[in-house]
């Protein structure tokens, strides 16, 4: 027994020596040939069918020889957890595209590099939309740069409007007008309903429902990120949705929809109105030419009020990256030539000048609405987005479902505010 073991250890030592030796040789030869630097880049699926980010990375790789980017796509609902865990284990990528709503969280934790310098030096820094810039700020420093954009707007089915006796070219301008239109459309009978929303999806509703609160001048979060769920504007908006539901203008299946359907029922041609974003337009135009639709800003209580959720991604460099120079070069490309590429796909870019020049002309009617939405777009700023809003058992969705399906708006608001305050205190 012992005899064989000794033999074995000699052999292993020899193999190890050879291995070390050859890798040394390998390294030396690599340095000599100056291979391109590979940046690791993570992103959630973006754009139609999630594939837009791959096209963009391919474009970058095509136009650069000294830097190459390697893309990893991570499913949306695990994104934050994966990036955070990777960062903690020292395993993080060099760059990440991140839903702008999470930048404060990562900035607070010190996971992102300070890019204030790049921001200040950028020629086009005044061309970025306000919301994306605001979310990059933490304690007066910039921790990311605007990347891709998204905005929420109201889609309406012109044919159904006509059938219900409404002017198909006139978009509803207040919540009350939406409610009345929805009722008239549902009265057409059959499976036809006036409105659709996802009843069990927190993210869908911060995207398409919160603007109704903002348009009135209210908010769900205060400037410092503390919760404001019990506001009177929120009550008005919740009452509006509750009326929609109680009047039977929303399909029953909406109650259970956790976002899997999101705005899809609109594609059946049997739904009068739905809140959705820019991502929804190309598919409608290409695959459903039979649906004549219009796009309009999400309104408030009075004519002239409107708002939109500014969504999309920002792009950030992870602290501890081994290639800071190349990472910054990527950021510069992504916020300049990359924006042109995006706009052509089409994807709503965060550079307003590029949006106006390249994006809007592709669909002057609908894309102009998206552009306007981006101009007024808001994004809630908080370092506790996950617990306060994203969590399906968190206060945001609980307030929503409690008020609309449970029927007790005041109670739901109060309970949500309590829960939110506890969370806010704990996670500050």
């Amino acid at each position: 027994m012992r005899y064989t073991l000794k033999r074995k250890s000699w052999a292993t030592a020899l193999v190890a020596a050879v291995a070390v030796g050859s890798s040394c040789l390998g390294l030396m030869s690599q340095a000599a040939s100056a291979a391109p630097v590979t940046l690791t880049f993570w992103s959630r699926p973006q754009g139609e069918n999630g594939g837009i980010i791959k096209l963009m990375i391919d474009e970058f790789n095509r136009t650069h020889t000294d830097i190459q980017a390697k893309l990893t796509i991570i499913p949306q609902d695990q994104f934050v957890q994966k990036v955070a865990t990777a960062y903690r284990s020292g395993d993080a990528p060099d760059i990440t595209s991140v839903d702008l709503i999470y930048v404060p969280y990562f900035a607070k934790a010190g996971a992102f590099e300070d890019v204030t310098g790049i921001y200040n030096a950028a020629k086009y820094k005044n061309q970025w939309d306000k919301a994306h810039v605001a979310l990059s700020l933490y304690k007066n420093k910039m921790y990311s740069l605007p990347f891709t954009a998204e905005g929420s707007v109201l889609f309406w089915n012109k044919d159904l409007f006509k059938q219900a006796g409404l002017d198909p070219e006139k978009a509803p301008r207040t919540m009350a007008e939406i409610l009345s239109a929805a009722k008239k459309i549902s009265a057409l009978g059959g499976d036809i309903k006036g409105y659709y929303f996802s009843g069990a999806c927190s993210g869908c509703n911060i995207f398409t429902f919160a603007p109704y609160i903002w348009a009135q001048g209210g908010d769900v979060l205060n400037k410092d990120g503390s919760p404001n769920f019990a506001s009177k504007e929120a009550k008005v908006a919740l009452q509006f949705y509750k009326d929609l539901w109680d009047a039977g203008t929303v399909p029953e299946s909406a109650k259970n929809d956790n976002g899997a359907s999101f705005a899809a029922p609109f594609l059946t041609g049997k739904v009068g109105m739905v809140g959705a974003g820019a991502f929804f337009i190309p598919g409608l135009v290409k695959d459903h030419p039979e649906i004549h639709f219009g796009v309009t800003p999400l309104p408030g209580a009075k004519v002239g009020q409107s708002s939109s959720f500014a969504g999309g991604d920002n792009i950030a460099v992870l602290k501890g990256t081994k290639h800071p120079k190349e990472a910054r070069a990527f950021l510069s490309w992504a916020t300049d030539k990359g924006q042109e590429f995006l706009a052509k796909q089409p994807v709503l870019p965060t550079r307003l000048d590029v949006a106006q020049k390249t994006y809007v002309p592709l669909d002057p009617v609908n894309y102009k609405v998206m552009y306007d939405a981006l101009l007024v777009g808001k994004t809630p700023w908080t370092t506790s987005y996950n617990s306060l809003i994203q969590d399906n058992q968190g206060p945001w969705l609980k307030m929503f479902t409690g008020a609309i399906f449970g029927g007790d708006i005041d109670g739901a608001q109060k309970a949500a505010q309590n829960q939110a305050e506890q969370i806010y205190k704990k996670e500050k």
Partner: protein
Amino acid sequence: MKKNELVLKKRKVGSRNSSIPFRGWLVICVSLMTLFLSPILASLLHSLKTAKDSAMSPPTFLPPTFSLENYKSLVNSSTGVISNGIYLYIWNSVVLAVITVIGTLILSTLAGYGFARFNFKGKELFFAAILLMIMVPFQALLTPIYFLFSQTGLQNSLLGLGLIYITYQLPFSIFLMRNTFMVIPKALGEAALVDGCTQFKIFKTIMLPLARPGVISVALFAFFASWNEFIAALTMISVQEKYPLPVILTLLTDRQMGATNFGFLQAGVMVTMIPCIVLFLFLQKYYVSGLISGGVKS
């Protein structure tokens, strides 16, 4: 609906009035069988519809036109949610299963034999440690394991995931192998001992072959566990190309502009289910005896 008849063994089948008459028994069994099978059958039927038909509401039970469209999409999918086509993910599941089965077999046959044949200090303690494993919600252990793994580069790897699967198969597998070995007479090995064989050689050349039914059962259960597990896979693997099948199923319900294509989802479900069903049909008796041996005698 409680079945109160008690059937006496062997010769007494069908005699007297203590058993339900054959016809009644048959009816009940067939109804139950239908109940158990129908969801699977439903899934199969729905997966064979065209994309348009599967979105039809209200649905028809049979496909208006039989179509392999959903399966084709699974294989050819090159954009969007499941790029790479389904074969990659099947392969991942296969690799994972192979790792789990081999690892579990080696560890549990050795350990089962050790527990069955020998008495040594701390035997009770080790056994208790194994029992403890079924008491702890293993989701709770996933995060520390992830951190541990990332120190050694095992995170985000099928190998790392497989090592976890092996470990959590151990309680059941060790019990099973222990029981199997306990039934094999010691005498068979004792003769060889006198001849100067090492314990290991006895184990390998005499006992193991005799324990074949147990070995096959352990392999089968390890396969099922690794093929179907989903939460640990979801947590440990971050890169889509390495996902095993069950995790891909969750992606199939992800919204992509359209409503969930349930026919497509069921096709994915079928692809995940079929290997299990086929294996089960072929190796039934081992599966059954495995459950008995592993479950009861522990």
